[in-house]
Each structure stands twice: as C-alpha cells, then as structure tokens.
C-alpha cells in the first residue's frame, strides 16, 4: 500500500466533506492545523448540494440561505484556507497504527494523521412491504439527488412514505421539477416535520394521509402503483381500508441511520440509542469517541439536521486541535460558542428526542 499522507503532512484528517466535516476542517485549519478532507463525491458539500430549500435558524447559521449555496460557501472557505482535499476517494478501512485505507482511482493507499474527525453522515432507511425491491422504490434523498444534482426527471407521479422534513420537502421539490405528487403517507396521527413545510405542500393540493402506511408496491418490472392502508392504534393495517394509488415512483422518507462502519472497524464503542438514530458512536461533550484520537460530528453522531451538524463539526474541529496543540483560549472560545448555540437550538420541542438521547449517552458514562 502506497503511503499518500503521513503524520508529518497531516495533523487532522476529516472523513466526509458534508456540512459537519467541512466545518470541522475549516475550524481546525483556522486554528493552525494541517487538514486533509477525504470525500467520496466529486464535489464537496455532502448532501447540501441537493438541498434547494432555505434554512431556518439564526443568521449566523445561514438562515434564509439555500443548502446548495451553503455548500459553495463552505467549500470555498476550505479551499481558501489551503485544506487538502481528496475527492472521489472512499475510506475503506481503519488499520493498525491508526492508518486509513483509502480507495482512489482503483488504487488503495494509506493515509495517516495525528487526529481523525469522522463525519461520514448517514444512509436512508428502507421499509419492508410487498415488492419493496421493485425499481421505482427509491430513497427520498436518491430522488432529490437525481433531480436537483443531475437534473433528471425522476418520474411522472410520486407517492411519498413518511412526513418528516425530508418527506415534506422532497415532494415540494418534485412539484418544482414538474412531477405530480399523488400523496404523502404518514403512519402517525400527526405530521412529523415542521408545520411550515407541511402547510406549503398542502397548499399545493397534495393530500397527507395520516394513520396510513404502505402495504405493497405494484408493477411488473417497475412501480406502477402503491397500495396504502389505514392503521389501527397498534399500527397494524386495517383490512378492507386498502387504497391503490397509481404512481411510478415511491419515495421512502422514514429516516436515516448513522454510517458507523469505519468506527466499528476502528474499535470505537458504539451504543444503541434510538433517539439518536440507532447505533451511534459513543462521544463525549467534546465529540471525542472512546478512542482519544478519533472525533465524530454530524449525522454520524446523531441524526439531526445540517445546522446542528455544522455546530458539532466546529466543536469536533476545535477540540481535536486542542488535543494536539494543548489547551488554548482560542480553541475553547470556538468550541464553547458552538456548544452554546447548540444548546439554544436544542431547546426547540422538535429537539426533545435528541436531548433525551444525548442524556442517555451521559448516563452511560456514569455507569
């Protein structure tokens, strides 16, 4: 294996160039670290590059700015700061002596840094129903990528499963791309995402079926219809309430799972905390994992949103620097400010789950 970068070249290696990883890299570079970002896409920005909606929150967190534009700002900052970037590169393993195996151009190379910030994000969850493997059953994010990044019309008529923010935003973006949205289907008795997103899509005439779920996809070698059904108080399907909706794409927007693979490989402690998205790496308030040279941030640490991922990234970047260069007031100031802003955001009722999940993690430390 060829050694591409050694500890002499790189202080902090960030895996994943999405909002969390980019902020970690930017903060670390600003604090004087030599930083490398490894990302498997051709451009930096992670999933921001397909998010055409404007962000909420405070001005400091890009409120009113579209995700696609935040990606450009962050990537621009990273380049300006002289951060090294490996694009189209996948980290495939964490080896002895803290070496990363990186697959790039069909070649496996070694990268070694003094500290790692892992920000691999998450992958979309699948749902089991009849013919769930039929072409046309797509992750909502996949549909968003096809239409907003590559400009491909994803289908003619869509049904979305799940009414969290992704399940509400992507159908709206489908309408913008000229695709009809037949229905949004939600198993709970209320919409999962923000009211503003729900109101926007309802104003466009898209029905949201609450207390409903999908039971089957129909079609020979591609989706031709979705069969949905009412559910009872125990969420089981009520026989005789089935309804067939013609469509050629079914969007699965039922949540995300953290991409922990690399951390399992590194031997980091992983805890099952459903509130944070399932199996998540243990991390302390400094975003340090059970291995002191590895930090985490963003959706990998808990399924949340881009604005909080960026703040966690700032904490991870600053604390990784602190552990390298010794305790300094600058590092403290950056991390404390981000931690304070996180605390403010997490006071929202939408964040109660996250707060309770993070508390469980703290309880684990005591035990």
């Amino acid at each position, binding site marked *: 294996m060829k050694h591409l970068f050694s500890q002499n070249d790189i202080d902090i290696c960030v895996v994943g160039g999405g909002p969390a990883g980019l902020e970690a890299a930017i903060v670390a570079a600003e604090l004087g670290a030599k930083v490398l970002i490894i990302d*498997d*896409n*051709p451009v930096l920005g992670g*999933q921001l590059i397909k998010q*055409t909606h404007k962000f909420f929150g405070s001005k400091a967190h890009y409120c009113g700015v*579209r995700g*696609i534009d935040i990606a450009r700002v962050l990537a621009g900052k990273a380049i300006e700061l002289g951060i090294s970037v490996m694009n189209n590169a*996948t980290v495939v393993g964490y080896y002895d002596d803290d070496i990363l195996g990186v697959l790039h151009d069909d070649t496996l190379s070694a990268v070694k840094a003094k500290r790692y910030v892992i920000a691999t994000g998450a*992958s*979309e969850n*699948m749902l089991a129903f009849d013919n769930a*493997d*039929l*072409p*046309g*059953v*797509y*992750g909502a*994010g*996949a*549909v968003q*990528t*096809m*239409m*907003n990044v*590559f*400009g*491909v*019309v*994803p289908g003619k008529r869509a049904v979305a499963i799940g009414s969290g923010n992704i399940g509400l935003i992507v159908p709206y973006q489908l309408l*913008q*791309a*000229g695709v009809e949205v037949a229905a949004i289907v939600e198993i709970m008795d209320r919409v999962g995402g923000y009211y503003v997103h729900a109101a926007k899509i309802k104003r466009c005439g898209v029905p949201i079926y609450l207390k409903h779920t999908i039971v089957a996809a129909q079609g020979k*070698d*591609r989706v031709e219809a979705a069969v949905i059904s009412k559910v009872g108080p125990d969420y089981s399907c009520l026989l005789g309430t089935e309804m067939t909706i013609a469509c050629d794409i079914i969007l699965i927007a039922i949540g995300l799972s953290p*991409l922990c693979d690399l951390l399992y490989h590194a031997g980091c402690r992983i805890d099952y905390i459903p509130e944070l998205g399932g199996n998540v790496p243990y991390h302390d308030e400094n975003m340090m994992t059970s291995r002191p040279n590895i930090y985490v941030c963003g959706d990998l640490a808990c399924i949340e949103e881009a604005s909080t991922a960026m703040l966690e990234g700032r904490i991870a970047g600053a604390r990784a620097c602190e552990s390298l260069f010794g305790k300094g007031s600058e590092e403290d100031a950056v991390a404390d400010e981000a931690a304070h802003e996180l605390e403010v955001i997490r006071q929202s009722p939408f964040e109660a789950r996250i707060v309770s999940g993070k508390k469980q993690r703290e309880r684990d430390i005591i035990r």
Partner: protein
Amino acid sequence: MSDYIVDHPILKFERGKKVKFFFEGREIEGYEDQPIAAALHAAGIRVLSYSEKLGRPRGFFCAVGKCSSCLMEVDGRGNVMVCMEPLREGMQVRRQKGRGKV
C-alpha cells in the same frame, strides 16, 4: 434526449458534453461525467440488475454510493456502482445477473 429537467425555478444545470454509450448493446446518449445511473434513468431505463436467487428486477435505491442496489457490469467489469461511476464515451453497460464477475 429524454427525461431531463429544462426549466427549474431555482436550479440551472450544467451538463458535460453529449456522449454515446451502450446499454445491453443498444446505443444511448448521455452526458459525460454524469453518473451512469442518471443517464440510464433519463433514458427511461429502470431495471439495472436481477437478483441472485429469484431473478427479481432491481433498480437503484440511495443514488449516493451507499446501498449497492445499483451494481452493473461496465466494460466487462462486474459490481460497478453506477450511481457513482461517471459516464464515458463508448462505455458498454450491461444488467448484472446475480453476483458480478470479479
């Protein structure tokens, strides 16, 4: 070419140069550097492979290189993740049946 978004209220799409490639031996047009899966989808092709045991049709699922639902045979090489692999002139793309050749 078929299913591309032309007018969009927010986005402008920059596409590479038009190239010809082959799907199951049939000539198709796409744009250079776009993922093969995007070119196929725009050409109306949904079935990318057949499952190993039951031969069920499979398409992509995540489109961001995470789920391996889109593995195809490209230029004789099996298990190519076509949602990530950039399109090149003259590529021979085939549906993979079961496990790919290694």
